[in-house]
């Protein structure tokens, strides 16, 4: 699979079919193309004469924490933020004599995720031990699936352009190599004061799905979009909340560069990526760093690098004098995991003990890509609107609730939700669930606007009032502030005539042919009506009266 060209080495851009659209960068709230320290601007401007093109290759290893009540092999609870070592069973602390017992929910979650990502689910998968010594791994090994994982050979499709460059066909696919079940390790906290490391095993043993993506991506934005799409899929399935900030989704990126046509270069692994924004930044920085290093005649070491958020660069974490030897061996305490489909289901089997792939496939919820298309069809909104609706947690539900209670057109509702409502939320850094305006309030407001009871500017005013959340409904606010549109033609005509009478010079100017003055008269008339008149109507009346 030919990797797209990275023609001009510039931070924050990937040149595929053309420039990476700015709006895509804004989608991740990135503050414009990042200036990365340590990068000479000279290298970034033009391809030097004789310089070859570079292609970057990015692969991802994503660890997803499964959303379940108990851990993968033990019955202790899975939850965020609990007193240290309170969610630890004897097995998690690897006390002798304890054995792993597989959690059914985790198996179902892995199968669901595999099916959603178009994987082949292995009917027989095996568990192995991966040995390494570390303080937060009490057993000295991690139970994982190295030989035969639970799902293999899938794909994830994500969209490239947004906004002006959107088109349903502008999508890219990344292959999923495998999905495997494995244990999470505990947490180690470094206490600098007393020069100690404190170990908390609450997280040890929690079920993880490791999603391995093949190196089909070529820049930070692509990787970020793919991860974002995976997040949406996982949330739609309910298999994980996929919250990077809470550590439920951890991404390691493998980055390498090479000249097109030549074999792949040496890869480095980038860790410590806490958010999607940093993921994109880190990958782009690493690509730049490698290109610069190679162009200066240096070599890339196969090492692990951590991303330093404050400096915006990657730093070497440890020197690997030879890779870790994990001494994989089959887990002797767990027989093979057998999954069934409706055909191969044994007769009279205990339903609790059997996982039926077909049953799970039938019960898969609607995936984000399908939802987006359905929204466009159902409401007649633009694809990028449905994209934006799904991007924000809870926004889709909000929109649907508003639509239920108002007769206004979907396009108008979308406009209000995506610009005004979302704008207010972002300004105050609130989530949809924290909005002071309820869907019914907004629905009422939009109905008033639709019925032409109030004008657009008045509606904005009412919205501002609603945001203060003083418990008043839009109708009440309109009445109190006397924002209703004046509809009576005679009243309007009276006001307009009065304005004309008060400004004879302007009237003369218009009659002489100066039409710009009409705007001034319109403005005066609007002020006279205290903003309660439809500007269009005022203009019509004035023009009639001026003839």
């Amino acid at each position: 699979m030919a990797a797209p060209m990275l023609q001009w080495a510039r931070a924050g851009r990937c040149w595929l079919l053309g420039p990476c659209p700015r709006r895509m960068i804004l989608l991740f709230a990135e503050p414009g193309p990042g200036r990365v320290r340590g990068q000479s601007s000279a290298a970034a401007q033009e391809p030097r004469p004789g310089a070859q093109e570079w292609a970057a290759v990015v692969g991802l290893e994503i660890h997803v924490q499964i959303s379940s009540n108990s851990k993968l092999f033990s019955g202790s609870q899975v939850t965020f933020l609990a007193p240290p070592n309170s969610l630890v069973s004897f097995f998690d602390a690897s006390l002798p004599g304890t054995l792993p017992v597989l959690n059914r929910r985790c198996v179902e979650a892995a199968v669901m995720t595999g099916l959603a990502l178009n994987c082949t689910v292995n009917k027989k998968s095996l568990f192995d031990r991966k040995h390494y010594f570390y303080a937060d791994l009490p057993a000295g090994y991690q139970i994982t699936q190295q030989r035969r994982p639970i799902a293999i050979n899938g794909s994830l499709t994500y969209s490239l352009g947004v906004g002006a460059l959107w088109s349903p066909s502008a999508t890219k696919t990344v292959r999923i190599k495998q999905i495997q079940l494995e244990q999470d390790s505990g947490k180690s906290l470094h206490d600098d004061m007393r020069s100690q490391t404190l170990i908390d095993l609450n997280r040890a043993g929690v079920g993880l799905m490791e999603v391995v993506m093949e190196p089909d991506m070529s820049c930070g934005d692509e990787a970020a979009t793919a991860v974002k799409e995976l997040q949406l899929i996982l949330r739609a399935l309910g298999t994980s909340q996929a919250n990077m900030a809470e550590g439920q989704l951890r991404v390691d990126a493998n980055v390498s560069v090479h000249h097109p046509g030549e074999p792949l270069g040496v890869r480095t692994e980038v860790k410590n990526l806490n958010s999607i924004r940093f993921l994109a930044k880190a990958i782009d920085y690493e690509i730049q760093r490698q290109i610069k290093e190679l162009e200066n005649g240096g070599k890339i070491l196969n090492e692990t690098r951590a991303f330093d958020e404050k400096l915006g660069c990657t730093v070497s974490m440890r020197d690997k004098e030879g890779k870790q030897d994990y001494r994989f061996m089959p887990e002797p305490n767990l027989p093979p995991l057998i999954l069934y489909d409706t055909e191969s289901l044994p007769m009279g089997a205990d339903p609790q003990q059997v996982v039926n792939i077909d049953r799970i496939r039938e019960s898969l919820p609607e995936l984000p890509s399908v939802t987006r298309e359905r929204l466009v069809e159902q409401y007649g909104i633009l694809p990028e609107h449905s994209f934006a609706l799904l991007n924000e947690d809870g926004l889709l539900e909000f929109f649907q609730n508003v639509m239920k209670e108002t007769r206004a057109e979907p396009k108008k509702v979308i406009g209000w939700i995506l610009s005004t409502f979302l704008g207010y939320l972002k300004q105050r850094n609130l989530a949809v669930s924290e909005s002071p305006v309820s869907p019914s309030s907004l629905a009422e407001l939009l109905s008033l606007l639709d019925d032409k009871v109030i004008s657009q500017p008045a509606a904005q005013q009412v919205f501002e009032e609603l945001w203060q959340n003083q418990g008043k409904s839009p109708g009440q606010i309109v009445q109190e502030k006397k924002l209703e549109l004046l509809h009576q033609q005679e009243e309007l005509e009276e006001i307009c005539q009065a304005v004309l009478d008060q400004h004879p010079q302007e009237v003369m100017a218009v009659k002489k042919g100066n039409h710009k003055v009409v705007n001034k008269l319109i403005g005066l008339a609007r002020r006279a009506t205290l903003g309660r008149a439809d500007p269009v109507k005022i203009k019509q009346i004035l023009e009639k009266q001026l003839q």
Partner: protein
Amino acid sequence: MWCRPLQSVLRTGLTPVTRSWKAKVRACRFAKSESVKGQSGELPTPPPASRPGCRVSAELIEHLERLALVDFRNQEGVERLHKAVEFAGQLRAVDTDGVAPMESVLEDRCLYLRTDNVVEGNCVEDLLQNSQQTVEDYFVAPPGAGMRGILLRHAEEVGFSVDGFNFSWGNISLPKLSEQDPVTPS
């Protein structure tokens, strides 16, 4: 006494393949460790295979010591290793062509699936009793030398006595603890 006829039966029953089992034993190799997925990273170079006669090279001894945290300590320990390897080499006498390996005696058992309920946990005091040092319900692992302390303790559990001075700490490359976890509650 009854085993003598058995032995003679076994000896005469040896096929041409197995007659040369001693030669096979001498040519035994250590299985390569598998490394996981990836693009063209450098694959781990396995330690040099042992020469015929099952002599284990010094580099291999060092590699094993690092991996498994054992200390062969002296020539006698290495000799014992050689004997153990030779003994295990007898397995090669069996012709396993076309036979799938059995990884577990449980392979025909059903893997029991547990319902997703919380039934364990909440035993901090019991767990902390096992630790020499604790700080506010956390286990303590002193960094650097302390890490070595954990490793030493683990090795002791496994049954090998480790003398701190013989333990080659410098060769172990472990991730720096302070950079391990970005998402940590303060």
